[in-house]
Every structure is written in structure tokens, then in C-alpha cells.
């Protein structure tokens, strides 16, 4: 087992464990923190996959900004374990069964193909570098980039319209 393999398994276990803890956790604050753990694990995977830019962005945007936003909101509402309403046993069961079945079905669908096992993820290359990404983004993908501004604008307007107190 190479180092990268060990890292892979470790990060995978961490991600899955974090995800599970996030889902089952009673206290929303803990859930947020577990989710941050997942994001870190995923960023680790990005680095393993030689996608450094995304790894950084993931940490900055997701773990750093988005999750903090979540935390703020949770704090603002003063939600804690006691506030968590009683879970519906059937919903719980149905939810986990469906989630599990989804996984099973997908895995079963993909497992059959032996060819897949041969497909390797190449770990070298310059795909993940800022320079490469940047040049493609501003040359070929300039349209989505520009258009995202509309998205942000509308999100901004929306947050103001919705979030503004009064009226």
C-alpha cells in the first residue's frame, strides 16, 4: 500500500464517518462541524487527485464561508439539541432505507462492469493548477463566468428582499 492509498482510505473513512455523524447528530452545531470535517476530507482527496485549486477553494468557500454562515444562522436561532423535534420513526426508517437502496442500486448497476475497474485515475498532470484552469476559464468559459454574476446579483437581491426586516 502506497502512501497515497493509505491516505485515500483514511480520507474516505473520515469523510464517510463525518457524513454519518452529521446526519445522525442531534445538535445542529455539531452537525455543522462534522460537515466541515467532511469538507476537509474531500479537500484532501482533491489534493490526492492533484486538484489543488479546488482543494483550496473548497476549504475557503465551503468550510470557511458557507459553513460559517450556517453556524451563524444556527447560533442566531439558538438551536440546540433540545430544540430538535422528536423524530418520526417511520420517516427515519423510510429515509435510511431509501438512501441505502439508492446506494445499492447504483453500486449494483456499476459493479457489473469489469472494464471500470481498469480505468485508473491519473494522478499527475497539470489540470488542477490555477494557471491551467484560469486560462480555460477566461478563454473558453468566459460566458458562464460572466453569467454567474447575474446569479450572484439575483441571490444578493433575493437575500436582501427576503432577509430585510420590516415591511
Amino acid at each position, binding site marked *: 500500500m502506497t502512501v497515497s492509498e493509505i491516505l485515500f482510505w483514511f480520507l474516505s473513512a473520515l469523510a464517510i464517518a463525518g457524513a454519518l455523524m452529521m446526519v445522525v447528530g442531534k445538535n445542529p452545531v455539531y452537525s455543522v462541524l462534522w460537515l466541515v470535517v467532511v469538507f476537509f476530507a474531500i479537500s484532501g482527496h482533491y489534493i490526492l487527485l492533484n486538484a489543488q485549486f479546488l482543494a483550496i477553494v473548497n476549504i475557503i468557500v465551503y468550510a470557511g464561508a458557507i459553513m460559517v454562515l450556517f453556524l451563524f444562522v444556527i447560533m442566531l436561532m439558538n438551536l440546540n439539541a433540545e430544540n430538535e423535534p422528536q423524530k418520526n420513526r417511520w420517516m427515519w426508517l423510510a429515509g435510511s432505507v431509501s438512501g441505502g437502496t439508492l446506494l445499492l442500486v447504483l453500486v449494483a448497476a456499476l459493479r457489473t462492469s469489469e472494464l471500470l475497474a481498469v480505468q485508473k485515475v491519473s494522478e499527475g498532470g497539470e489540470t488542477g493548477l490555477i494557471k491551467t484552469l484560469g486560462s480555460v476559464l477566461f478563454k473558453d468559459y468566459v460566458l458562464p463566468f460572466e*453569467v454567474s454574476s447575474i446569479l450572484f446579483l439575483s441571490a444578493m437581491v433575493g437575500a436582501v428582499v*427576503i432577509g430585510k426586516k420590516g415591511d
Partner: protein
Amino acid sequence: MNLIIISSIWGIVLMFSGLFFPRKSVSVNIAIIGAILLLIANTLDINGLSITSSTFNGLLQYDIYGYIFLELLLISFLFYLLLSAKQVTEVGNHPYEYFALMFFVMAGIGLVTFFNNLLILFIGIEIVSIPLYILTGSDKRNLKSNEASLKYFLTGAFSTGILLLGIAFLYGASGSFQVDRLLTEARPGLGVFTPIGLVFVLVALGFKVSAAPFHFWTPDAYDGAPTVFTSFMAAIVKLAAFVAFSNLFLFGFADLSAKWQLPLALMTVATLLIGNVTAVYQQSVKRMLAYSSIAQAGFMLLAVFSGNDLARQGLLLYTPAYCIATIGIFAVLIRMEDYTYDGFNGLASRHPMVAFCVTVFLLSLAGIPLTAGFFAKYFMLASVVKTGGFLWLVIVAVVLATISVYYYFRVIQAMYFRTASSGESFLKAETLSFRLLLLAGAILLIALGVFPYQLLLNWLIA
């Protein structure tokens, strides 16, 4: 492309004009000017006068079909603004923002009409969706509006996740996000991803067009949202989603139709069934219209299903047939106090012209000949017949369409055959221009119902 640019700019213009024109009513005029501008811009586009005709390295693909579709949608949008813009200003304190959001939505619609790359599709869908979440929740004090918004948002975000998973799988198989290359396997064996990705995309787009069993958000969101925004969502946005859906399946997955036609057919049947049958029970016209939009979506799904030239022509015809009718009925509904069927009682004697127009709209929705709705449905059925098989689908669709008569005609019955309980006029702001506009819409529907080719489709063929 003109549309995308102008509408983005006009959205920003609207945001800023709020600063200079504190009176709400000005926003209406600016919005209407914007809609007219968009219409002009798009017309210029059709005639080759574009700001840019770049495809951005193949991310976009322009075709006359998309332009005509947009033109129709813009006409509907203008119709909508002319009829209901004033009511937009009554929803909350931010009329400029609401209009701005609508213009952003129009920009998103432009993207999903011309997308040739899944990334554009994704961003386009999000640009359309996010403003809608906000518009749905714009009546902030109204708990129903809040609830609708949150439900819409949660389910919408969930479907975004599913869409992305689908896109990821499709990419895994083909190594490309370009629509026309989605089915070419990057390497032998990767083809196993395609059907999985297809299912997820199908589910996500099915969600957007409210196909069963992914339709559940629709009644709640449409019912809870302020009625004027429901009108916008149900009519204009719904159609845009359909065009995206049909373009993707027609240009991206046509070769795989053997795999997805049956699932799609089943979805169609389920949509028609649930939409029509559940609408029967409704007591509120607004909610009934929500279910009816599901039922109509069932019919439009037939276009996606068959994906031939007839289907595309049909979808084009469906656009005015459905939009004008829905917008018209909602415009009347907005002006009423009582959203139940009883609210319509005696409308015909009090407002004969309005009642006549609403009748035409309802007949069109029900697909009665001499209205555009008939040909819209006709093309859908014809396109299925043209695929050769699946005649059972036609028959099921036809039988279920009969049910739709039940709830559409209940409104007609209320208007014409029952008498109002209260004495006074119950339509607010029923002005002459309102009546004339409605009449224009009705006449347009009838004209399209007699000469669909001469008035519309020949344009496409030429």
C-alpha cells in the same frame, strides 16, 4: 443573445431606478419598457442583428426555433406585465427588485433555450430557479408564502444535487459536457454511466417541469406564492423548462431513445393522471390551476417523448396556447377576492367580456377546437403517433384529457350558469385596457386555433 444581455442589463437598471423613482408605479412602466425592449431585441436577433453571435466556443447554439420560442415567450411576458404588473407592486415593498428578478429569470431562460453545454444548462436553470424561490417567498408576512418558498427551495436544491450527479455521470461516460457529444463513449466500457446519468438528469428536469412523481412542490409552491408570481412561474418559466428538457433529449439523447422512452411514457401517464385527477377535487381555482399545470405538463412531456419535428412545432404552439391562457386566467384571479369556484359565480353577467375571454382561455386549456390549445394538444398526440408505437399512450392521454374538462368547465359553469351571492362588482381594477388586452389574448388564441401554420409555424419552416 440580445435577450440575455439586455435582460441582464435591464435587471440592473431596474434595481438602480428604485433609487431614483421612489414611486412604485414607475417600476411598472420601466418593466414594461424593458419587456418591449427585449421583444425588439429578440426580433432584431431573428433578423440577424445581434450584439454578438458568438457561440462562446460552442457553449451556445442558436437556432431559429429557439428564437421563435423566445419571441413567443416574450410576447407572453409582455402580456403578463401589461395585465398584472400593477399587482406586482402590491405584493411587497420591493417592486423594483421583483421586476429585476424577473428580468434575471428571462436572462436565464435565454440561456436554457440556447444551451449546448451542460454547464450552461445548469447555470441557466439556477438563474431561473433562485429568483423564483425569492419571488415565491416575497409575501413575507404570509405564512403560506413562506412555507411555499421553503418547500420550493428545499426540493429545488435537492433536485439540483440530482441534476449534478446526473451531469457528473454523463461526463464520466463521455468526457464532455457538450450536448451533442454526450453519447459518445470516451473509452469503451464507460457507457454504463450514461443511462444512470440519464435517469438523474431526467429526474431533475422532470422536477423542473413538474412531472410526476417529482411534481409535489408544484401545487404548494404555486398555491403559496403571491398569485401574480404564480402566474409568471406557471406560464413562462414552465415553458422554458420544457424547451430545455426537449432540447437536451432531442439533441443529446436521441440515439438512446429506446432506453428512455418507456420510462418517460410512464412518467407522462403518471403526470396526466395525478394532475387531472387531483385537480378534480380542488376547491380553490388557484390550486386547481396548479394541478392543471401539472396535467398540461403531462401533455407537453409527450413532445419530449416523441422529439420529432411535430413535437417541436407543437411545443412552439403550446407556448402561446398555454401561456396566454394561464396568464389571462391568473390576471382575472388576481383581481378577485375569493379564489374558490364560487368566487367566479355570476361573472358573466357582471363582466361579460372578461367572462368571455376567460372562457376562451379555459377552452384553450381544455383543448377544444378553434382554440390554440386544440392544436397544441393535437401536435403532441400527432407526434406520438408519428413515432410509430405507443398508441396506448395517445389513448390514455386522450382519456385523461377528458377529465380536465371537468375542472375547467366548473369555472365556466360558475361564470355563466350560477349567480353571484353579493351584489357589487367583484373584480378590482377592471379597466377598459384590461378588458381589451384580455380580448386581444382571446382573439390571438382563436386565430392560432384556426390558422396555426399561417400565423406561427410557417415562420419556423421558412
